[in-house]
Each structure stands twice: as structure tokens, then as C-alpha cells.
């Protein structure tokens, strides 16, 4: 099966007053048709920048320094802006983190949905556009679609706005939907509704989803595959089961350990000590070395390469190296 989206060695640099931030460093992954890939990581790990790089929506001071993005054989990273505009909203859409600020406050909900339809289907008449927009509002489960059509964003709650944003994103039946922390800003009860909606619509319109999140609960709920990012690098990727049950990278282990568990009382919440690396001047070895409980000398000096643990599962960590395993045996023997 050939993949829908193929990201190869993506490097994104952001120029700031203080220097160049190497926000994404050599990220590679692929996305299959109909699957849901979750990119997991803490703030500043480069996950948002990665997808913005794919969409060609990097801020003015950011640029793709190296690497390629292929979608169905087309190299997106080399496409002229005009061609890219045709792809945005039509083939790849995006949902954003904060529904409160992601809609234009002075434009009605209906117009904002019609706008994307009109952009990619200029042949539609006004009536068709309106019909389709209302249809779209109904699809995302909002009551009274006709009323909603003429309302302004501030008249809707956060959850309803996120539904509108989903309606906009899915209006043209995109092949890929990128959701950048779509539930982070919402109440917990609404979060589940939005995720369910996304799953339901994915089935209906057969789209692939890239979901960015730092919430592993969300990942377990919706993802087929997981990619864990840290310090601008992909540290572990694999199927949901691989990553959750055969966890290979100490950072992923730390993330999983820091999920609060309801049935274990009287336990202090686990947290990973330390702060993420400064990507202005990234460490030359493993970015997680400074916080890792198993740091070896090699981790600080050399960047770990990927070790394939199975056909679907790989991780970048020196602990997976043969030599470390030997050393580990020695250490165990000594103890």
C-alpha cells in the first residue's frame, strides 16, 4: 500500500531576534489512507511546527530548511504558493487548538463555511453554497442549522465553535485532516464529544487524520499509530499497541507514567524532571539525555539512530543498541 503522505527528513528553522530556532530536526513519517496518526509531545517539541510545515503555513520567520513532503506523488514542499492554495482546504484541512480565536469574529458562521466551499468550487451557485453550508452544520451535529448559519462565533459556546471549525475543515471532503490539539481548550465533557464526532466523520468521508496532542488519553481513544516527538525530533513511532505496551523510549515511558491513574490511590503523580532543551542551541546528542533516568555517556555525545523493533515500531535511543544491552548485563552482574 502506498502512503498518502510521506514526510522525509523534515527540518524547520525559525528565525528569532535571539537566533535561529531549529524547531524540527529531521522528522520522517508517513500516513496511510484512512488511518489516524497521533503526534504526541509536550509544548515546544515541534509537533505544531511540523504540521504547519506540511501545510505551508509556517510563520513568516520560519522556513523548511531541508527535507521533503510528498502527497500522492506531488512534492508539497516545492509547490508554488498558488498550487499550495488549491491543496489547502481541499486536500488537506486543519483544525486548530483554540476554537475561541480561530473563527473570524465579524463574519457569520455560514459565511465562513461558504467561503471555503466557494474557494474550491467556484462553480457552485449562492443557493448551492448555502445549502451545502447548512448541510455541513447539520453534519457536525449542531441543532437548528438554519439559525446557526446566520450567527456570529461569539454567540456559540466553545464546543459548538469547534464543531463549526470541523465543519469548515471537512467542507470539501479533504483527504487529510490535521487536528492541532483540537480538544485542549475545551471542557473535559466536550472533549469526548468532539473526538467522537471526528471518529464518526472520518468513517463517513474516509479521510486520514493527523492528530496533534499531548494527551495520551486522547491518543488511546482515537489513534491507529503514534509518533512521539521530543526536542524537535521523532523519538518513537509505532502502532498504538507498540507504543503503549512495548514502549521503547524512556521519554515515552515517562509520558505514560505521568498519566494519573484512578485506581491507584495514595500515589504521587509522576513527572519527568527538568525542562525541554533549548532548540536555539540543541544538544549534539540525544535531546532527552539531560532528563533521562538512564543517560549514558554516549547519549550526550552522539545522536541515537532509529532501531527497528518490529516492522511497524521504531525508536531512537542508545539503550536499544546491542552494546548498551551488554553493558546493562554487566551492570546487573555487578550490582
Amino acid at each position, binding site marked *: 500500500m502506498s502512503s498518502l503522505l510521506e514526510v522525509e527528513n523534515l527540518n524547520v528553522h525559525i528565525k528569532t531576534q535571539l537566533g535561529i530556532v531549529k524547531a524540527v530536526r529531521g522528522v520522517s513519517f508517513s500516513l496511510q489512507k484512512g488511518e489516524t496518526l497521533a503526534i504526541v509531545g509536550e509544548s515546544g517539541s515541534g509537533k505544531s511546527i511540523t504540521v504547519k510545515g506540511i501545510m505551508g*503555513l509556517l510563520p513568516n520567520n520560519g522556513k523548511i530548511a531541508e527535507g521533503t513532503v510528498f502527497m500522492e506523488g506531488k512534492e508539497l514542499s516545492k509547490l508554488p504558493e498558488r498550487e499550495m492554495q488549491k491543496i489547502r482546504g481541499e486536500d488537506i484541512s486543519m483544525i486548530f487548538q483554540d476554537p475561541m480565536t480561530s473563527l*473570524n469574529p465579524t463574519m457569520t458562521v455560514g459565511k465562513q463555511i461558504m*467561503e471555503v466551499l466557494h474557494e474550491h468550487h467556484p462553480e457552485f451557485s449562492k443557493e448551492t453554497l448555502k445549502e451545502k453550508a447548512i448541510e455541513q452544520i447539520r453534519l457536525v451535529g449542531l441543532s437548528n442549522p438554519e439559525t446557526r448559519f446566520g450567527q456570529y462565533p*461569539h454567540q456559540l459556546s466553545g464546543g459548538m465553535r469547534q464543531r463549526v471549525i470541523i465543519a469548515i475543515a471537512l467542507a470539501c471532503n479533504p483527504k487529510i485532516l490535521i487536528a492541532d490539539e483540537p480538544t485542549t481548550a475545551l471542557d473535559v465533557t466536550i472533549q469526548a464529544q468532539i473526538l467522537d464526532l471526528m471518529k464518526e466523520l472520518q468513517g463517513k468521508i474516509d479521510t486520514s487524520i493527523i492528530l496533534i496532542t499531548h494527551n495520551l488519553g486522547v491518543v488511546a481513544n482515537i489513534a491507529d499509530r503514534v509518533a512521539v516527538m521530543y526536542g524537535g525530533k521523532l523519538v518513537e513511532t509505532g502502532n498504538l499497541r507498540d507504543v503503549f505496551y512495548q514502549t521503547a523510549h524512556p521519554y515515552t515511558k515517562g509520558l505514560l507514567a505521568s498519566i494519573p491513574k484512578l485506581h491507584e490511590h495514595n500515589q504521587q503523580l509522576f513527572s519527568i524532571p527538568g525542562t525541554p532543551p533549548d532548540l536555539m542551541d540543541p544538544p549534539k546528542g540525544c535531546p532527552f539525555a539531560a532528563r533521562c533516568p538512564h543517560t549514558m555517556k554516549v547519549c550526550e555525545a552522539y545522536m541515537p539512530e532509529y532501531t527497528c523493533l518490529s516492522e511497524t515500531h521504531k525508536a531512537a535511543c542508545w539503550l536499544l543498541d546491542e552494546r548498551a544491552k551488554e553493558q546493562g548485563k554487566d551492570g546487573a552482574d555487578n550490582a
Partner: protein
Amino acid sequence: MFRYICKRIVYLLITLLIILTTTFFLMKKLPGTPFDSERFSLLPPEQQTQMLEKYGLNDPVIVQYGKYILNVAKGDFGTSFFYSGQPVSGVILGRIGPSALIGLQAILIGLSIGLILGIIAAWRHNSGIDYFTMVIAVLGVSVPNFVAAALLQYFIGLKWGILPVAFWESWKCSILPSVALSFSVTAMIARFMRTEMLDVLEQDYIVTAKAKGLNQFKVLMRHAVRNSIIPVVTILGPIVVNLLTGSLAVENIYSIPGIGSLFVDSIKTNDYSTIMGITVFYSSFYIFVMLVVDVLYSVIDPRIRLASNGKGD
């Protein structure tokens, strides 16, 4: 919304009353009446009393005040001392045309150039045109309008003879004064628009718009400009003040028969019923503009419009 407007109107009426009262009593404190000037003292005493009688200057101050307020409410500002007995309201009305023409032209010039500069400057942030706009913005508010007017008159009118130097004979005469007045308007609008746009361009919904696949121009016009142009309404108040102030000097410099020059002339001749008339006129106009701005802003910004509806305000 309706209640809000009523509340505003009440405040504005109180403001107006305070201005009227202040004006009235300050005028009473003026060193003498217009008849103080030499010509008046030459008149025979009986004629002097007759004139004082005629202008109601012999009543006790409080009676004069009451009469004055009543008359103002009726739109009667008394008669001008200087323009031998013409009603002040008539004198003012006759002068509105030129002032209005110049003011409107200045706003038009300022609005169009200011908006364009502001939009381009924000869009091309930190580019040459951005710096140029900032320089214009700083100069526009820093060069006093009477200096700008005088320099324009000297260079374009006198030295190069491109446009009429002064007076009010044809539409051409209104160009220089309008341009002189428009400088600060351009500066204020360009600066404000630039700041607003820069702010809006950072907003998440701009990214949403780009993610829809809109091209730069559509993102800019439909989403960025639309949202940043709304608050520009709020600086209309300061702009009108600026124009009123400017018109006093500029109309004088270009000898334009407008209200500004009438005001300055009446100050120089102590023609105090005219001064009071213009004071009331200016204040009411200013207050009216502020009210319009308030209402307009809530009408064109859906967030305010509906938020206040929701509260039943």
C-alpha cells in the same frame, strides 16, 4: 442598546449644559463688552444705555443666564455685536459651507491615504514602506497644522504658484487648506490602522483563513482589513477635534470664510455672543460626533451589537 443610547444622550446634555454655563460666566468676566472699544465710548450716553438695553446687558446676571439658556434651547444665540445686529445663528449657518467642505475633503484624503498606508505597512511589516509610514505618522502628528499650512502656502501657493494662495473663489481654493488639514488625519489613521492590522494578522483566524486555501489578497481584505478597520471608527472623535482645532488656524491662514476664521475674528473683536454661539456649536457638534461614533461602533461590530442585546441593555 436603546437604553444605552438614552444614557449617553443624558450625559452629553449635562456636558453641554456645563459648557454653556462655563462659557456664559466666563464671558461675563471678560473685560467689558464689545462696546468697550473706542467707537462705543464715543457714542452719546443715552445711546449707550439704549444699546445695553437692546442686548439685555442691564439685567441681573442670573436673569441673563436663564434667558440665555432658554434662547440657546430655541437655537437663538442672540445677535452679533460685530456684524451689526445680524443673528449669530445666521452668521454661523452662513459660514458652515466652506468649513464643512474643507473638513470633509481633509477626512477623505486622510482616510484614503491613511488606510492604504496603514494596511500596506502592516502587511509588509518592517519593510521600506512600513518605515516610510512610520515616518509619515510621526511627522504628521508632530508638525503643527498651522506650520504645515503656512509652509504649503509659501511653497505651493507663493513660490511655485501651482494653486491659489488664499481666498474663497473656486473649488481650487479649497485644495491647499484641505491638504494642510489632512496631514494629521492621515498620520493618525495610518498609525492606528497599522497597529490594529499587525495585531489582527497575529490572530488565529488569519491562519484559519489561510488554511482554507484563500490567497494572500483575500486573507488580507476579507479577514484582516475587515477586522482592523472597525476600531478605526473609535478615533473619529479625536480626528474631529483635530480638524476643529486645525480649522481655526488653517482658515485664518487661507482667508477662508468658515467658522474657524469667524471664531478667531470674534475672539479678536470680543464679539461675545458670536463666541458663545460658536462654542455651543462646536461643543454640540463634537458631542454629536462622539455619540455617532459610539452608536456606529456598536452597529458595525457584531460582538458589541449582540453582546449588549443579550444583556437587554
